[in-house]
């Protein structure tokens, strides 16, 4: 009898210890809005180097798999955190979605327009009457604003996920992510000096891109967890930039696991461009290293407003819940 009680006591005790363990490591689902690549190197390194675990988080990285966007999953409560573009989230917030920005990762637009020099396109006005390929959705906001700014009439063609039509000269101007498609063009044998790239940041159309988001409920209930998560993520980024070789090896392993048709040269370039974008700062009051400045937020909001994509700009204080300067 005494023996039974003893066994029960041990069982209860071990269960208590176990529950304490699971309390310490809080399970978190993190949706990333594209396939694994150096664009997410910081998060991957935070995970791989145990920065999340050290912050008491059991993070599960959920890369885009072709099904629903992480932002929708966030709204639906399927993930706790996600990455998304600023223009995308402002629009969603203005429609009433209860989401907040916790951390702004990319400060500079990587979206660019690119043309071959031999097409004679040297300045925005030269795009008049040209065939320009655009991605749909948020990828077309900056180009649209750009074309209207320079009153460009053009033939729009839908853009797929590769740049072969551009290489084959089926398009005159192509949309490209500076960290991805632009370099794919280079890695297809076109030299930098044979291309003209148009950076939206050079035309007052800079859109900060990737940021970390969660629901209002999450920030209200678990503000400490949100703060820890963002801090660990930024630590991961810092590590990634300081240890590029190791980072790239790990990133390439992720790419291989997801059967990505990429290579080390491309990922190395991507990491470099992402670093530039994260450390990009236009002025004293501008966003920098994880922070979304009000000025940048409003600039994006106004363009969305202009294009009729939103009816009003959600207040900055409601939108951004991250760290201030």
């Amino acid at each position, binding site marked *: 009898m005494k023996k039974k009680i003893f066994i029960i006591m041990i069982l209860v005790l071990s269960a208590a210890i176990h529950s304490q363990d699971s309390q310490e490591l809080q399970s978190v689902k993190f949706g990333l809005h594209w396939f694994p690549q150096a664009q997410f190197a910081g998060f991957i390194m935070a995970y791989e180097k145990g920065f999340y675990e050290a912050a008491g988080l059991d993070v599960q990285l959920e890369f885009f798999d072709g099904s629903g966007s992480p932002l929708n999953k966030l709204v639906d409560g399927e993930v706790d955190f996600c990455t998304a573009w600023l223009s995308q989230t402002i629009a969603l917030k203005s429609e009433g979605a209860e989401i907040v920005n916790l951390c702004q990762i990319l400060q500079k637009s990587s979206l660019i327009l690119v043309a071959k020099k031999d097409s004679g396109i040297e300045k925005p006005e030269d795009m008049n009457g040209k*065939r320009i390929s655009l991605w749909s959705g948020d990828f077309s906001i900056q180009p649209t604003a750009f074309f209207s700014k320079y009153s460009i009439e053009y033939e729009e*063609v*839908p*853009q*797929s996920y*590769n740049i*072969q*039509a551009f*290489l*084959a*000269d*089926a*398009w005159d101007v192509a949309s490209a992510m500076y960290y991805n498609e632009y370099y794919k063009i*280079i*890695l*297809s*044998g076109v*030299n930098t000096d044979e291309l003209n790239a148009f950076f939206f940041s050079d035309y007052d159309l800079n859109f900060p891109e990737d940021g970390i988001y969660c629901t209002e409920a999450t920030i209200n209930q678990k503000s400490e967890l949100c703060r820890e998560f963002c801090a660990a993520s930024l630590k991961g980024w810092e590590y990634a930039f300081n240890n590029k070789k190791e980072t790239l090896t790990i990133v390439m392993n992720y790419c291989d696991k997801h059967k990505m*048709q*990429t*290579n*080390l*040269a*491309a990922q*190395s*370039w991507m990491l470099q461009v992402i670093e530039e974008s994260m450390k990009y700062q236009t002025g004293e009051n501008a966003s920098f290293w994880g922070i979304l400045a009000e000025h940048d937020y409003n600039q994006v909001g106004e363009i969305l407003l202009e294009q009729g994509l939103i009816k009003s700009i959600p207040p900055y204080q409601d939108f951004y819940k991250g760290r201030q300067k």
Partner: protein
Amino acid sequence: MTKIKRPIVWKLILSIGLPLLVIYSTILFLNFKWNKSSAIEQMKDYLVELTSHNASTLNTDFTKIAQYPIGISKMLEVMAEPDEKEIFNLLIDLVKSDSLINSMAIAFEPYSFAKKKRFAPYVYREEGRILTTDLTKDYDYCSADWYSIPMLLKKPYWSEPYYSRTEDNTLQVTFSVPIYKNNKFLGIASANISLEKLRETMENIHIMGGYIFMISQYGTYIYHPNEKDIMRETIFSKAVTYNFNQMRIFGREMIKGKKSVEPFNDPIKGIKQWIIYTPIVSCNWTLAAVIPEREILDVVYSRIIKQMGVMILGYLVIMLTVVWVAFNITNPIRNLMKKTERLATGDLDVQMVNIRGEDEIHELAMVFNKMVIDLKHYINDLTNATKARESVESELRIARHIQESLIPRIFPPFPHRKEFSLFARNIPAKEVAGDFYDFFFLDEDNLALIIADVSGKGVSASLFMAVTKTLIKAKANYVDSPETIMSQVNYDLCQENDAAMFVTTFMAVLNVKTGSFTYCNAGHNNPYLIKANGEIMQLENTEGMALGIIDDCNYTSNKITLKKNDMLYLYTDGVNEAMDIDGNEFSYAKMEEFLKKLGESTPRETIEITMNAVQGFTKNAEQSDDITIMALRVLMLKDNIK
């Protein structure tokens, strides 16, 4: 034996071995160079042939398949409103007709076919069967590259290879052709080709130590021995990863459809490689081969090593022959040298050198042998001659002794006689002299003085002198007048004087008591009389010539009287005719010079002064004639004592 500083062996080795080494090295080097360039040329030809052949085969396949979508586009251009079944049947027939075709599709532009929003009949192979479907079910093909690019370009298009979505994830490439009807875009006809067969073909091409690869029109690896690189890497991404800009330059040439063979230093493997690339014209892909130069050169190296082996062997044989020949030449020479050295030490018993053959060395040995024999004979002769000469010399020595004993040499000769002082000296020019002097008392008071000079010198002269001296002394026993003695001796000497010798003789008889001095001069130099007051005069000549010439020659005598301290000075022509090194004679004048200065010198001192004067004149010149001098000074006369 002498140590030879530069032996012939070394000279031969240096003069043959070194140039030969240079020649061999040059041959090897040139051979290597020529072999290398010819091997590289062969390799280039082979690889160009290989890549060109494969590229052309692929090109033929692709061109052939391209004909099907082109055919469809032309057919649809003229077909009047075909129905769905006709379209499918057309595709099924085409796919069946050619095993290279994996699938075919006709994708219509929205609302271009029977007012359907979209229609894309698709016929494909699956596990040997031919199946049909409508691509519309899967996706919006309008944004696909194979559709949009030829549509926008308005010309046929080879897609980049891609992994198929519908089948078992094989690598495919699509050829698409835009279809127009009445200048209106109708859609795209396309054919898909699986690259599995291509991969098998590529895998079966083996290049020694090298590899082949194929890139697309944008540099993507379609085939590469490293499977992981296929479709993931481009030639340009590799160039970045390995920081190898030349690879990017090659890549750009390739995608421009260029063809080339070039060497390059591969930073990945750290070796020199050759790249050969040739385009597959239809789809603008490039087939390339890379081969390490080492692989090509290994063949050359092994050939050169074999050659080197043969050459080294040949070289050794030549050098051994050289050494052998050199020793064949030098060994006899050394042998000769040894013998010569022994010969030089005087060992005439050296063995004869025996050298075979009929060459110069053999001749040299023969000459050496003859020399040894000649030398032996010569030495023999020399020994005999020396012996003969030595015996003559010893006889001459004896003759001289005898002659010397004939001439009185003890002075003073008459120690108890105070009336006069006498001294004489004879210095022969050769071993045996022809001069002589003599003096002896004929009786208590009369002293005979003789000085003579035999014609000629040597043994015969001395013998003649001995005879003369003996005759004079013999005659003086009976006769005391000098002219009679001279006359008789002359007569005797003339008898059987076949050698025609003669002797100049001066003979005088001095009465030591009275100073009476009777003399007869037979052809001799007239003696000097040096008077007590220092005056000098030569005695007057008497009649008669040298003894031994004419047997009945008449001799007379003169008679003078000597006074106290007068000195008689008798001499032979060896004095007045003594010659210096230039052939100048001493002369009477010089004689008289010192005779005048004699003063009260004793006869011994007088002779010494004479000798000193003569030697002072002749110096180092060899004495040409016998020198004989006799001096007598009158010290007291009995009459005077009285």
